[in-house]
């Protein structure tokens, strides 16, 4: 027949073929275009992690080590002074990063495991499974979570394990809703139907077909959730039911040194002492938000409209 169809070859067919880039190359391009706030956020977050990981080498003293002088002023021996038991504030700040962030990270991971697991299950199975799970989540979300957590911690006792489990379950409700909503959009795709027709198990459909496609919003949500969990732990510690002494933690440090703020008229540095752990909490929250904002902007596809 015609020459054109004789020359036709599927291999040479071209259309809008994307340039193949490795994840490393793509990250480099994204990083080179990252705005100032994103860089600031990344520097903040990575330095916090650095401090948390190398806490024993960075801290001048142990986290529970007691010195003779309580409420020591800021000087060269104790840079930020000591608290009412005579523990070095700087050391406790450094160890606090490790404890608070470690627990917050574990809790957030657990919350995502529960939330994403049930959320996707709900999205795939629909029907009564979805109804029961979603209504149960509605009930949990109807109760103010800080008060609910306070109550549960008073019942079960404030151990680190209980703290992690209770906050993870309470926070997984938000993750459940997100995972269910974005999962629903993917469940209706034909490749999920194709997997069902193949006879795949539900775990494969969840983990291999759906999860990779909803990862960007989940990663962004992970950053935000981490902030909330972190703030919640700090709040609970401030109220006295969170991380228990002698473990160093920023929330309880604010509570312990809180009354010093009234001496601002006499000694400014002493009044600054409770501000330090509070600032540590605030700066990390802002840093994580900067990074998440940028990540959302990169992955949501909004960027094309702004050009």
């Amino acid at each position, binding site marked *: 027949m015609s020459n054109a169809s004789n020359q036709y070859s599927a291999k040479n067919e071209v259309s809008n073929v994307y340039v193949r880039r490795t994840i490393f190359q793509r990250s480099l391009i994204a990083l080179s275009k990252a705005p100032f706030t994103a860089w600031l956020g990344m520097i903040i977050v990575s330095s916090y992690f650095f401090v948390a990981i190398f806490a024993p080498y960075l801290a001048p003293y142990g986290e529970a080590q007691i010195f003779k002088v309580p409420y020591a002023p800021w000087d060269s021996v104790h840079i930020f002074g000591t608290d009412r038991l005579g523990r070095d504030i700087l050391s406790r700040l450094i160890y606090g990063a490790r404890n608070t962030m470690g627990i917050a990270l574990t809790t957030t991971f657990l919350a995502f495991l529960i939330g994403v697991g049930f959320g996707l299950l709900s999205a795939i199975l629909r029907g009564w499974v979805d109804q029961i799970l979603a209504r149960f989540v509605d009930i949990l979300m109807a109760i103010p979570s800080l008060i609910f957590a306070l109550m549960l911690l008073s019942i079960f006792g404030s151990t680190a394990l209980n703290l992690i489990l209770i906050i993870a379950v309470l926070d997984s409700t938000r993750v459940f809703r997100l995972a269910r909503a974005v999962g629903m959009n993917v469940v209706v795709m034909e*490749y999920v139907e*194709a997997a069902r027709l193949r006879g795949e198990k539900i775990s494969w459909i969840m983990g291999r077909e759906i999860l990779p496609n909803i990862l960007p919003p989940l990663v962004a949500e992970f950053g935000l959730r981490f902030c909330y969990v972190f703030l919640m732990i700090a709040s609970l510690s401030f109220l006295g039911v969170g991380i228990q002494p002698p473990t160093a933690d920023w929330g309880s440090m604010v509570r312990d040194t809180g009354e010093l703020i009234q001496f601002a008229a006499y000694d400014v540095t002493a009044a600054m002492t409770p501000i330090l752990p509070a600032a540590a909490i605030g700066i990390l929250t802002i840093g994580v938000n900067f990074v998440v904002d940028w990540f959302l902007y990169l992955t949501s596809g909004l960027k094309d409209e702004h050009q």
Partner: protein
Amino acid sequence: MSTSKKSRSLLLDIRNISIEGYSDEAWHPIIKGVDLQINRGEVLGLIGESGAGKSTLGLAAMGFVRAGCRFTGGSISFEGKDLTKLSEKEKQKLWGTKFSYVAQSAAAAFNPAHTLLNQTIESSLSHNLETKETLQKNAVQLYREMQLPNPEEIGDRYPHQVSGGQLQRTMTAMAMTSKPDLIIFDEPTTALDVTTQVNVLATIRSIVKEHQTAAIYITHDLAVVAQMADRIQVLRYGETIEVAETNQMLKSPNQEYTKSLWAVRSIQKKTQKKEDTILKIENIDASYGSGPMVLKNIDINVPTGRTVAIVGESGSGKSTAARSITGLLPPTNGKIIFQGRKLPARLSERSKEDLRRIQMIYQSPDTSMNPRHTVRDIIGRPLKFYHGVVGNRYTEKVIELLRMIELDESFIDRLPEELSGGQKQRICIARALAAEPDLIICDEVTSALDQIVQEGILKLLLRLQKELKISYIFITHDIATVKAIADEVVVMHQGSVVEQGLKKDIFSPPHPDYTKLLLSSVPEMDPKWLTRILKQ
């Protein structure tokens, strides 16, 4: 008929226009120095495959480029002005008054929250062309000319209250309200069923002729453009392949490429007699939830190693029939007998072996392949899942399958977004083959592809059938595709089977009424076809 010999004045003159688009951190040419002239009252057909730059050129005729595109050279002269040099504000004065645009999907272009009449006159009103009352009167007159039912009242309806064909005609009326000099029709009937398409084509043609409006008619279907256009311009990769009067273009195209645009129409499969039956569907009923019955008492037989084509318009239940066979939508009544054995109705009750033997290929390879899986995973999964193939054998098998679909091992680590449309569909075919099925259900597998790619896919399917003795159920709305691939044909309409039989019997008279309507609505390459069909 279509070309009046009166000397017409030049309306729009595009000279050597170039347009670039921004993607992947660089500017890429989309239109590479194209000339286009259009006279007053003339209809120019713009034809080419997807990615040829038809829509971009059509929009450029109004001096418009999409976001992320830019003019890089050439001129567009209209009434002594160069549109590429005008400011946005000056161009906005022309848009909606001198130029108007009819988009492919009317359903997406209308605002669901406003009535049709308000939307029809909206742009003319905002340009202060006439008073509201006059515009409304004119709009009703246009509705009448477009042969919309109840022209006085239809304007008070909302977009979801009228059919797709009516919406497309309303959109044409909207384009006509400002009495423009030039209308750009961008694939206005592509999304419509053939029987609806005939009416829309006829009304568009008569209204354009009556008002002596010039038009650019963009489409990928040469048979449609043959009915509409005085002249045809063929585009490929942003360049003009050839321009000629319609009659001349159809009789003797200069370029081989132009001939390839109707490639599928040249394949003809010889009907083969059936031997034994692989799949037998008896008296199946089906409905979604407690809704109305979508399938009513369906009987279909599929002979072993042959192809049964199911044809019908959208909503006829062809895809639902496929869903019932696969078990995704268990039928409420009736039996599915596969290889002499009754299949459980529900997907969850079927064995892995049952599932393996019936595979499915979808219309859109973009949504039927997981965008995060590589070709290796996509083709390899059924191998591992059904046949337990692992290790070196796994990669060998995947490459073997790639060769079978005329690709090679260089594709093995690509993601779907790194493949062209035809290649994607081939990978889907390979995924189905990997299961070593006895029956493949193809749901509109070629509908989203260009003609020449369609031809390649159809030839591949025919070859695979010959080599592997696979049976196909081929669901399509395109009669040319049916002629190319089917042994037997099932005609469906409103959830029932109108008739089933050998291809040559179905396509030769006498026909039941519906089959007759369906067959006569398929545009033919003859430019007088539409005129002839309307006379009947």
